[in-house]
């Protein structure tokens, strides 16, 4: 590798570590160029492809899509939802159905294998989980979740 790095380039602080081929530099005024770069291998994870397809449609919604002047889901809600799924889903977890809601939120739904799972994402860091088990177990009703999605993951485990 011909290395001519360590030169100053433009500052571009604040990092997005998720869903990036390379991290944006957080607060760094410089960058190493011609340097070995981390390029994640392509993923065959089918739920990601399905979810991204749904996001494409939701982010294109025009204001008033529901007849009540609601806007499309916000990019922040989309980013938060991606982070949730990244934390809670396994490669073979079934993809959810994404339903836009009033106020720019999104509801994620899984209805299969005797479970009705609904995760309502109102705003970034503000979600609620509701689960109904058709085998008679006690339901989970509107459990608030913000950062820790272990509970959602445990429930989704039953779909695999």
């Amino acid at each position, binding site marked *: 590798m011909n290395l001519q790095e360590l030169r100053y380039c433009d500052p571009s602080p604040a990092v997005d570590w998720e869903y990036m081929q390379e991290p944006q530099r957080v607060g760094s005024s410089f960058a190493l160029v011609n340097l070995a770069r981390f390029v994640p291998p392509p993923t065959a994870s089918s739920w990601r492809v399905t979810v991204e397809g749904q996001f494409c449609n939701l982010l294109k919604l025009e204001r008033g899509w529901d007849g009540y002047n609601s806007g499309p889901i916000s990019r922040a809600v989309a980013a938060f939802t991606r982070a949730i799924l990244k934390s809670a889903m396994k490669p073979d977890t079934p993809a959810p159905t994404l339903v836009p809601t009033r106020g720019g939120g999104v509801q994620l739904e899984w209805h299969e294998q005797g479970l009705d799972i609904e995760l309502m994402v109102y705003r*970034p*860091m503000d979600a609620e989980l509701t689960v109904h088990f058709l085998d008679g177990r006690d339901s989970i009703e509107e459990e608030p979740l913000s950062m820790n999605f272990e509970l959602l993951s445990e429930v989704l485990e039953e779909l695999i």
Partner: protein
Amino acid sequence: MRLSFPDQASLPGDPLPEYAAPPVAETTVGIQFDGLDAYNSLAAADFWAEVKAQFPAVEERQPLEPAFETFGPSDGANAVARIEMVTEVIQPRFFFVSKDEAQLIQLQRDRLFYNWRRTDAALEYPRYSHVRGCLSENLDRLYRWAARLELGEVVPTQCEAVYVNRIPLADAEGNKCGLSFIFPWLNGLKGMTEDGIFRFRRRLNDETGQPVARLNFDLRYGTDEEGGREAHLMLAVRGRPSELLTKEACLAFIDAEREVIVRTFTEVTSEDAHKLWERTR
């Protein structure tokens, strides 16, 4: 507020290491927030009018994507590229830059950050207390500005602290040295590698044991155009207090993030390097 790794080495009350000449090249502290639904570029111009005397230059940049730390069993999944088609207007990220270019405020629809960066005119790191004070002042300004222009309510969603260090790979006499002189845990590699990257992430828990933040460690090294060897070490912590989301809570959280960064920096670097940077505690 205290953040700790699940397998924390230091104990509460351990004094925070200090350096008289730390290799800090840039530091960034700030918050990500939600709620400014009425934000637009004219409102950003109004914010700039308030800081223009101290930050007279303006630059426009691509906005940063919203990013959130969440926790579950699958956090190590790899990234995928995506294409987004959106109907909303994409607002730029503004840099309001000081005359000596050493300080800047970054403002976009959902972020406010304060940066200090080393320049020829500002070689000495002004210390965290100064950086914190500048962030605090501008957070106050952010809340006042949002209320005055009726942009919406600022709801913090993430707090972030970042330190970037430029570390010449040279000893006290200026002689070239291997990476392991600075980073002793890299000892064992035979021969000199040309360049490289080493990255990891670690969860951070709050006092109740709940994961609330994440440390991102990024070490890169190589050779510059003059043949000098240098390492860049970036330590970034992002997360959110689990309850109160006031300005004071955000600052306390950023204090805790900075503490993790300072301790990690000290743990991953050698005592010989600490002497170079004039460790005082």
